[in-house]
């Protein structure tokens, strides 16, 4: 029988208690209901990173408490730390922003449009998305699906149309062309679709690497060009945005099919990003699909988009329910078909095509027949599609209801042309030598997008299978960040294109509300008439007018604001507080200076967060386990990248965690006792004690009091008195020390890096220089 390990047993007990505490924090009563809490439980070896940061930062002059954890750890009794964090800034993450794979700040650009600052609104969009005008036309708009006005008893805000309005009115403006110096590293990108173009843009413009895109087709754009017809995405828009990417210094080699990766490395490329997309049509797998007159949807669109002449018969049957199917049907109408029917084996709800695309197709005369599955295609006088009716069954692997054939319901539909568009699959050339997963997609590390081959990254449809435009762009951004880190950079690709926002003019929003009237409705997007649309390939959707767009912005519920407008934080309205917060966070790329936490905060959200922390700490007491609440070590965890997006992290150490417990008398801890400072009746409990007489009003010199007065010195060994005009230079140094130490940990743990040069610049700028 193995020896009973009491320590281990007790430690496991603590871990269980930590889980109970975490539950308590989740169940704590809420005030605003808008404060999301994040938690993490740490113990054992996981604490070593913290000790490293603590040691290094303290060596550089920081005063980071929590030494007791290390001593306990060294004694073989690692404490269990429950990290609780919350975003308590005045800015609430709105559902629309959370739904966007790129995290575009939707409420912000809607607000800016409402304020008439269209160029700033466009800049906010471009910050995350170099292909913004394209996005404004073809995105499937997950933001609108999650819009809170839509989930109430109303229609969602026309976010996509507003985005398009902002992009259209500022279309002649070039994005800023500031470029880093070249790093001397070269990146090859295979495929010029949305993922490849996005990665190229950031790698060249922000990271400063030399980028070459290799494109097999004669024109760049990937699926944007071959798969999306001009009536949805005009070619001048596509060309303009690709030209902008070229304009930052990206080279695109057309008509260059890459069959093997090794020659690229031999040519001197240091990293390769494979973004080849999913261009291989999925066969339907029924009899007769190779008959003459049966064509494949994607190649039909590709031929049309590349200017080749495409021909269809008078009656066209399209099989499928995605955008390719719907677009093939719409194109067929434009190239001579008299009657076009889409057969889809599920119902409208399960169709993958965008709702607007389906509506336009129906308006143009495309018929869509649901719950019909093709069985075979025969050639008689013309073609004949043998079909069977279906009904919806249980969910299948795609999460949609599966079509179940109804026996005996077979029937035939005659057709001159049959277009098959039932999906695309990925084809990766064998000589790439990459490890593939099921379905032929490239296997990658989900965090870094690195493949089985050193220096090769992959993303977009080639990894995920066919998805949306916006997800491909998100993959491109992620790849750019990790390729930059692989090449020795910080991996920071965030751009801040919009300037600091001015506080809004309240009279303007009042005018807007008057303009909007009592209950404005979601606008109908103006479109070309059916005849005009079918006459050619002109863009069908026309975009909103300025007045309609402005009115539409008033429907935004401003979910990104707490909404009490109480003034407790120091700003008159939540809106001002949000603007201040956004401006401040952008100073250092999301890591504002500040010793403990990242301000500003909403007073109520902080109180709400306090309730949750208290419940976690109190829950431990139900199990007769001691707990504390420690704020200062939380800073280190925050800088190390734990609980991202939180502006405050509190550590709840569990177990026998009172400092006195760990330390016998005379163990050298005397100088760490809590310490009373009599001035203003305050007591500060961390040591060495720093008292600063700073800021306006602390006017010692005026009162004839010298800041180095003798009476302060003994017995206060560690007292630092800083003159009014030299406030906190040392604090800023300590703050920076913490950033430096934490960044090393982030690098080791493959987390988002800190922008140290920028942080240093900001901190130094805040120093006073007598």
């Amino acid at each position, binding site marked *: 029988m193995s020896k009973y390990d009491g320590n281990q047993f007790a430690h496991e007990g603590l871990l269980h208690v930590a889980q109970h505490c975490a539950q308590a924090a989740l169940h*704590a*009563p809420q*005030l605003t209901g808008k404060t999301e809490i994040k938690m993490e439980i740490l113990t054992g070896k996981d604490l070593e990173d913290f000790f490293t940061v603590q040691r290094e930062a303290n060596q550089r002059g920081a005063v980071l408490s929590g030494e007791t954890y290390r001593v306990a750890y060294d004694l073989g009794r690692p404490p269990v730390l429950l990290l609780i964090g919350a975003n*308590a800034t005045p800015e609430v993450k709105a559902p629309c922003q959370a739904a966007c794979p790129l995290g575009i700040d939707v409420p912000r650009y809607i607000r800016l449009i409402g304020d008439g600052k269209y160029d700033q609104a466009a800049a906010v969009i471009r910050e995350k998305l170099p292909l913004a005008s394209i996005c404004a036309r073809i995105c499937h708009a997950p933001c609108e699906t999650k819009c809170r006005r839509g989930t109430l008893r109303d229609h969602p805000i026309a976010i996509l149309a507003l985005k398009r309005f902002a992009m259209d009115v500022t279309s002649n403006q070039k994005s800023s062309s500031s470029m880093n110096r070249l790093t001397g590293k070269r990146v090859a990108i295979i495929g010029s679709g949305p993922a490849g173009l996005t990665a190229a843009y950031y790698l060249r413009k922000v990271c400063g690497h030399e980028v070459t895109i290799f494109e097999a087709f004669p024109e760049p754009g990937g699926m944007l060009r071959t798969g999306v017809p001009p009536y949805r995405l005009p070619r001048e828009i596509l060309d303009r945005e690709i030209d902008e990417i070229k304009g930052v210094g990206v080279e695109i080699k057309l008509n260059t099919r890459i069959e093997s990766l090794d020659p690229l490395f031999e040519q001197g490329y240091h990293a390769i990003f494979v973004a080849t997309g999913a261009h291989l049509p999925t066969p339907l797998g029924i009899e007769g699909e190779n008959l003459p007159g049966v064509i494949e949807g994607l190649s039909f669109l590709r031929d049309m988009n590349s200017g080749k002449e495409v021909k269809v018969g008078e009656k066209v049957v399209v099989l499928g329910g995605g955008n390719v199917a719907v677009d093939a049907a719409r194109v067929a109408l434009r190239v001579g078909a008299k009657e076009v029917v889409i057969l889809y084996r599920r119902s409208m709800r399960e169709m993958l095509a965008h709702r607007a695309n389906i509506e336009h197709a129906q308006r143009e005369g495309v018929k869509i027949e649901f719950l019909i599955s093709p069985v075979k295609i025969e050639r008689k006088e013309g073609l004949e599609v043998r079909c069977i009716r279906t009904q919806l069954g249980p969910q299948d692997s795609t999460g949609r209801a599966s079509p179940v054939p109804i026996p005996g319901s077979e029937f035939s539909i005659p057709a001159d042309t049959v277009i098959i568009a039932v999906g695309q699959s990925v084809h990766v050339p064998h000589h790439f030598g990459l490890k593939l997963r099921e379905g032929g997609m490239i296997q990658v590390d989900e965090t870094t997008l690195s493949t089985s081959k050193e220096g090769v990254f992959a993303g977009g449809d080639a990894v995920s299978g066919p998805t949306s435009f916006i997800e491909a762009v998100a993959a491109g951004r992620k790849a750019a960040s990790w390729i930059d880190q692989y090449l020795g950079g910080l991996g920071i690709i965030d751009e801040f294109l919009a300037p600091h926002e001015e506080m809004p003019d309240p009279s303007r929003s009042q005018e807007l509300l008057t303009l909007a009237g009592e209950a404005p409705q979601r606008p109908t997007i103006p479109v070309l008439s059916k005849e005009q649309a079918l006459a050619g390939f002109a863009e069908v959707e026309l975009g909103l007018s300025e007045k309609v767009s402005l009115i539409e912005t008033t429907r935004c519920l401003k979910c990104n*604001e707490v*909404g*009490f*407008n*109480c*003034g*407790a*934080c*120091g700003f*008159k309205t939540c809106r001002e*507080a949000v603007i201040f*917060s956004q401006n*401040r966070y952008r100073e250092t790329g999301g890591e*504002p*200076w*500040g*010793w*403990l*936490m990242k*301000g*500003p*905060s909403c*007073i*109520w959200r902080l*109180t709400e*967060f*306090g*309730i949750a*922390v*208290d419940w976690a*700490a*109190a829950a431990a007491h139900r199990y007769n386990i001691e707990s*504390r*609440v420690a*704020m200062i070590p939380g800073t280190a965890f925050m800088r190390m990248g734990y609980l991202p997006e939180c*502006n*405050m992290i509190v550590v709840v150490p569990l177990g026998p965690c009172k400092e006195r417990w760990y330390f016998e008398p005379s163990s050298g801890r005397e100088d760490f006792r*809590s310490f009373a400072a009599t001035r*203003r*009746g*305050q*007591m*500060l409990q961390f040591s060495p004690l*720093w008292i*600063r007489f*700073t*800021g*306006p*009003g*602390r*006017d010692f010199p005026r*009162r004839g009091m010298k800041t180095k007065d003798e009476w302060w010195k003994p017995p206060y060994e560690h007292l630092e008195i800083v003159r009014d005009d030299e*406030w*906190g230079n040392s*604090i800023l140094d300590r703050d920076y020390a913490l950033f430096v130490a934490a960044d090393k940990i982030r690098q080791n743990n493959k987390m988002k890096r800190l922008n140290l040069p920028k942080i240093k610049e900001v901190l130094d700028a*805040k120093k006073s220089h007598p």
Partner: protein
Amino acid sequence: MPRITIRDWPPYSPTDQQRRDNAVIAAKLMMNGALTAPSIGGIAMTEGEIVYGEEEQEEIARKMEELAYETESQRHAFLYEAVMVRRVDVLLLIGNTRAYSDPWDGECGLCAGRPDCSFIYENRKQSTGIIDQTDRRSETLVKGPLCAAYAHQLGYNVGSALMVATHLYIDARPFITVGLAAQKLGYCRNSALIIGIGISATPKCEPSDPALDYHLVNLERGIDKIRGNVNQLGLRPTTGSDYRLGDPREKR
């Protein structure tokens, strides 16, 4: 020992009053819980007040309804929660006495200013770092900026009070709106930041799942409506013959 009968209906009857009195005891214990919460720096800065009684609760509820029409986006919250204030057995108000005038000075950087509390000092009338508390004029609901760290501290206090309520199996819920209204009425008068906790010991805790348009559709208003419509209940006075002359049901 006399029998103590406790019933939750009808409201404010002696039997209901017994129940409410117990809720007051809970509120007192909750306040003790608030005082033992983890504390920044171990300084005394928590203030509490228990509001109990139909008139007193009505006064706060009316103030909340008044504030409701001064705000746009949270109007419904003020209106709904005013009903809850009338409905609960007792209110516990917990405030922080230092958030307005004595910021933490902990270099925390949680507020909108530099990490040296200057944001608060710059926005106050003060001399040698001592803030003038006599100027209570304010354009906003709360006279900000308040010390953000102490607001977080207030969360600990309120959390501990609520935790005591769960230990006592009594329903409690914190409200921002109650605190705002109570502060205007002079409760917890040393505090600029107050959270109100509604405490209720009834089978149905209405504050936890209010109906739509709760300021209109709630139990009190519903019952009142029924009382007004006695005609529909068949309670209207019989007309015709005088009951003193004989039972009106009996046909003559």
